[in-house]
Structure formats: C-alpha cells, structure tokens
C-alpha cells in the first residue's frame, strides 16, 4: 500500500481522472474531496461492507418461504 503525507488543501492524483484532496483536518477527522468520473462508485467503506453483508444474508435460503409471505387478498 502506498502511503503519502498531505497537508490541508493538497491533493493526490490517481490516473487521469481521479483527484482526492484534503479539505480539512480536525482532530482525528479528515474531510476529503473526491473528483472522479460519474461511473466510479464511491462509498464509505463501512457502508459498502454493510450492503455486502446484507446481500449475503438476504441470499440465504429459508425453508418455508411460501408460507411466510402473505398472499394478496
């Protein structure tokens, strides 16, 4: 993993299209500004992991599914 030191207002460039800048630093919180093409998905890591886990959970089978789901009246 590449580790870089940056100051507030400085940025890093990833490839042609992606720029990540340090907007502000307050205590242990860092505010980042990200410029990237719209087709790049950018998410807070923990949110992405939560969605992955929820999908894994939801994909598990349940035996009596058809009995659990209510029918339309």
């Amino acid at each position, binding site marked *: 993993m590449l580790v870089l030191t940056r100051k507030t207002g400085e940025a890093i460039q990833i490839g042609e299209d992606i720029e990540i800048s340090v907007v502000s630093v307050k205590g242990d919180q860092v505010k980042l500004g990200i410029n990237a093409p*719209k087709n790049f998905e950018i*998410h807070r890591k923990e949110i992405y992991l939560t*969605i*992955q886990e*929820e*999908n894994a959970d939801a994909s598990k089978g*349940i035996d009596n599914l058809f009995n*659990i*789901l209510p029918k339309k009246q």
Partner: protein
Amino acid sequence: MKIKTKYHGEIDVKEDGVLNFEQGIPGFAVEKKFVLLPLPENDLFHILQSVSTPQLGFVVTDPFLFTKEFDFELDQGSVDTLGFTDEKNVKVLTILTMKETLHDSTANLQAPIVINLANNKAKQVILNDSNYQTKHLLFAQPEQAGKE
C-alpha cells in the same frame, strides 16, 4: 432459455426479460444477469433469480407497499449508467432478508434495486447519505404480519 432456480425448479425464461446488472451487486460482483420471477398466488413479492447461479435468489418487493414515504434521489452516475431518459421507466424494488416470520423480516432500504424498464438495465444503488437502513423492519405493528 432454460435456467435452474432456487425456488421454481427448472424453468424457461425469455431472453428479453433478463435484467442486466452491469456491475453485479455488492458481494456478488460476477452476478450480472437476473430475472424477476413471480410467486405462485402472490403478486406482492417476487424472486430476483440469478440466471447463472441456481441457488442465488433474493426475495424482493415494492418498497412503497410498506414505506409509503420512501424516497431518494438517484445520483447522476446511476442515471447515466442505467440510461434513463424518462422517469416513467423507473422501477424500484427492495431486497428482503427473510426470517421465520414476516414480522422479523427486514428490507434493505439503503440499497434499493433500480431498474430501467426501457432497456432492462438494473443496479443496486447504495444511498450514501440516507436515513434508510439495511435492516428496515417491514411492519411496525406485529398484528399486520402474515394476516390472511
């Protein structure tokens, strides 16, 4: 084409009914093709069935059925990816995590499935700044659950 499914056995599905998830879905990045299968005698829920993996099927429903005020703004990247030109082609579903009772089952409102009915492109959209949870209980009042 014939596919094997999780809940429906082996069935014949139409090619033009296949939903294309170009990016897969989180946790299942290689799963890019799904079909929506109806459930017998039940038009409230569907199975979002993987075309290539028989054992991969999600229970999905219309989130507006149980969360009337559900709303979110689709980011421009998703609008472009899905090729929306007309909002009347937007279909939104939510994946359910089923438990032993419907009352304990939850809906993933933080990551709805968005489909463009005009071209069958689909995507599980992650709402970054949302008040919606991955485990939204379907029913606030227990007596509603499973009522016939």
